[in-house]
């Protein structure tokens, strides 16, 4: 979690710049894993945006057919969990790198 994450890097060499605590360059695997987490975080935002699209349909002049609306909602509903599941599967395959970095971006 971003809020908690900040305080996670323990070395309390306080005055040193942040770049000291969080390495600027990380191993490729660590980098990949962090981007996966980014993906997992972004997914619900995408879902929310997609599911708020129906708000635009409620225009009385050009009525949206219920069937197309339902198809849209359910396609998103199938797609999001599948993407989430794929992300989780990839995360499982990739070894867990330093536990402290888990919440970091």
């Amino acid at each position, binding site marked *: 979690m971003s809020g908690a994450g900040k305080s996670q890097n323990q070395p309390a060499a306080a005055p040193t710049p942040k770049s000291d605590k969080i390495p600027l360059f990380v191993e490729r695997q660590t980098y990949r894993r962090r981007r996966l987490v980014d993906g997992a975080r972004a997914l619900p935002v995408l879902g929310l945006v997609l599911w708020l699209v129906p708000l635009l349909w409620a225009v009385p002049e050009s009525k949206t057919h219920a069937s197309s*609306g339902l198809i849209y909602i359910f396609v998103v509903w199938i797609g999001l969990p599948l993407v989430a599941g794929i992300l989780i599967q990839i995360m499982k395959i990739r070894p867990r790198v330093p536990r402290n970095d888990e919440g970091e971006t």
Partner: protein
Amino acid sequence: MTTLNALAAISILYVLFLFAVAFFAERASRRGRANWLRAPIVYTLSLSIYCTAWTFYGAVGSAARNGFEYLTIYLGPSLVLIGWWWVLRKLVRIGRVQRITSIADLISSRYGKSNLLGVGVTLLAVIGTTPYIALQLQSVTLSVEVFSQASGGEQEQTTAFWVAVGLAVFTVIFGTRNLDANERHHGVVMAIAVEAIVKLAALMAVGIFVVWGISGGVSETLERIDASSLGHWEVNGGRWAGLMFLSAAAFLCLPRMFQVMVVENDNDQQLRMAAWAFPLYLMLMSLFIVPIAVVGLDVLPAGSNPDLFVLTVPLEYGQNALALLSFLGGFSSATSMVIVAAIALSTMVSNHIVMPIWLRVNENVVSVSGDVRNVVLLSRRLSIGGVLALGYLYYAQSGGGAALSEIGLVAFMGIAQVLPAMLGGIFWRGATRFGALAGLTVGFSIWVYTLYLPSFGAAILPESFFDGGPFGLIWLHPQALFGISGIDPLLHTMIWSLTFNAVAFFVASLSSFPSPLERLQGAQFVNIQQGTGGARSWSQGSAEAEDLMVMAQRILGSADAQRLFLREARRQGSDTHLPAPTAEFLQILERELSGSVGAATAHAMVGQIVGGMSISVEDLMAVADETAQMMEYSATLEAQSQELSRTAAQLRAANDKLTRLSVQKDAFLSQISHELRTPMTSIRAFSEILRDGDGITAEEQSKYASIIHDEAIRLTRLLDDLLDLSVLENGQVSLNLGEGMLSDVLDRAEAAALAHDDKRGLQIKRDRESEQVWLNTDTERLSQVFINLISNARKYCDAESPALAIVVTKGEALTVDFIDNGSGVAPEAQDVIFEKFARVSDQKAGGAGLGLAISRQIVTRLGGEISYLSGQSGAAFRVILPLEKALAAQ
């Protein structure tokens, strides 16, 4: 048509089947073969208690009445799960690490184990859940009614009653069987997972029958939908977004959801699967709702209850088996929700209301013998009964009907008031107990006033409230606060209650100061990812391990308690069965206990034994102060010891000096006795000669007499010096102050010192210009000093042609340096030459060694000082005289 009796028989068989599932799961878990019980799929399915009978029957009804709005109720939770990385992951970890037993426990524990908050959330949960339980009872009753209408009969009330009783029995048996530290109910969870499959299968079966059996295929169904009254997408935008948010909030806050999602959670693996699988489950549950609604509206006579389409459509087509399956699906939905809700609520009621009261009433009973476990279990069981009784009473009072179907969202709204305190608590360390209380109180009050009470119609709030506001205050209109009308009542409450809730929570948190325990708990909750070891909350003290053992046995059961104590004892490296009551052990014990009785109660119980010796931050500060004091003290000690070692060094130096002096004194004494004896011997000898002398010439007589005289003078001078020094040292000397020119004093001294200088011929170098200084001093004494210094140079200067330079410098003070060209004084002798009886060497015994000592005494008396200047070409003495006196004399 299935007869009522057959229906009852099937229901009972089904319930027995669930009993069996729960029983075997429970047994497997007790035998330690619970791995498959913890499978992620079981966890995922258990989340399905979100889909109650309100979903199973109500979603179709809602779709038939309000169109596509029903989808939002499932879209919200789907988003929450897909966004598991944000909230759920953290929530679940906190639940596991802190041994959270309920949502009330979470809030209470986070905010400093405050029982007041626990009670508040519990009440909110009970108020919010009771109508929901009533709703489940109603759905079962209605579904039974559908079958009974065919066979005829009126059993509405009794059905609900017996269902309630049956559920109470099931819940008591499987929900309160174990009181272990994990507070996990494997049997119940397994039964719920089975029910989840049953309800999904039932709904999908009806859906498939409707789509392929009645409509004839997917495209035909879609056409049918477009052609129906639901044919166009008409959704209230505000409600679409609002309900999505509300359902997401409720998904996190509902006590039963919290129970299965957080309390029953065993590992992150479960959540990882649920994150994608449960949205799919919800999707499947929602998939056939619209087709069923459309077909139901189409084929069934107008005015039939759309809530029961799931049953009535198959019945209409004579599909009895399908209808029966559908009935079981609805029955499953209702029962699983009621069971879990009852467990969750009973845990809360027991931990936050009954146990604290019991502890208060029976003070200091924790450490005496007896089984508290029974009390806890009894209170749980009674709570379960109470919760179900409340639900039944609510149902009986409201008389069923449409009023109940709206209550689902009202209940959601109520429980969502916990959201700010919960999210604030796990993400924001600044959230305080006072803030949580303020937020909950404000949100709850607004919810009650604007939504809950109005939901009962005019029964509770007088009609006038809805006409012109209470007491004519239009801005207090329950459904149009601040005079802003025209908002959907639900959204109206949602906006105002959650806004004011969050604002009150935030502002009160900002303006209040958290207690030490709160701050520790807050840090632990917010930083849960760090896997903290936990804050130190107990100090070791009077807590007796035996008392703790007694108490733990009564709550955890003796086997578990002994295992725990033994494990901890081993970990502490102790041979006995009782671990030392260290702070760490108390922490672990409290956490274990909190798994059974909640954080606040566990804290109170340990507190009773330990004597309330919870460490506050003040204590820590005091300890820190003490430490600082000790550090300061040790720094002082260090300084002192340095001082001591310095002093010791000085003392050693002094001792060395004394030793040297003593040696010198001994040497001098022998010297002075020799000095005294030599003249005395000659005096005696010559006086004897004179006395006995016959035939001594007058010349000889005169010679002998003058020898005696000289020797006597020498003795007298020696004794004078000794006396002089003694007088000077005792401060008895009186100075004869007068004015004089330095050059005159030096002239006199030079003349006197060199009077007897017969052979060596000391050469004196002087600068007469600089000597023209008037002095106000005792010139006699000063010249004595100078004489001494000059004659020293005369006596001891070992140069070929001895010379003495007298340099006068006028600075802040008047310095007169006497520098000869000899080899000087050896360094080791420099610090003793001013002492009495000190002599540079024994060989050059020219005097008694009192000259410099006397000189120093004199100069000190005159307000100046005399010192040896090292590093000069020869022996160098410096006399410093105060110039004030000198200037004043000019």
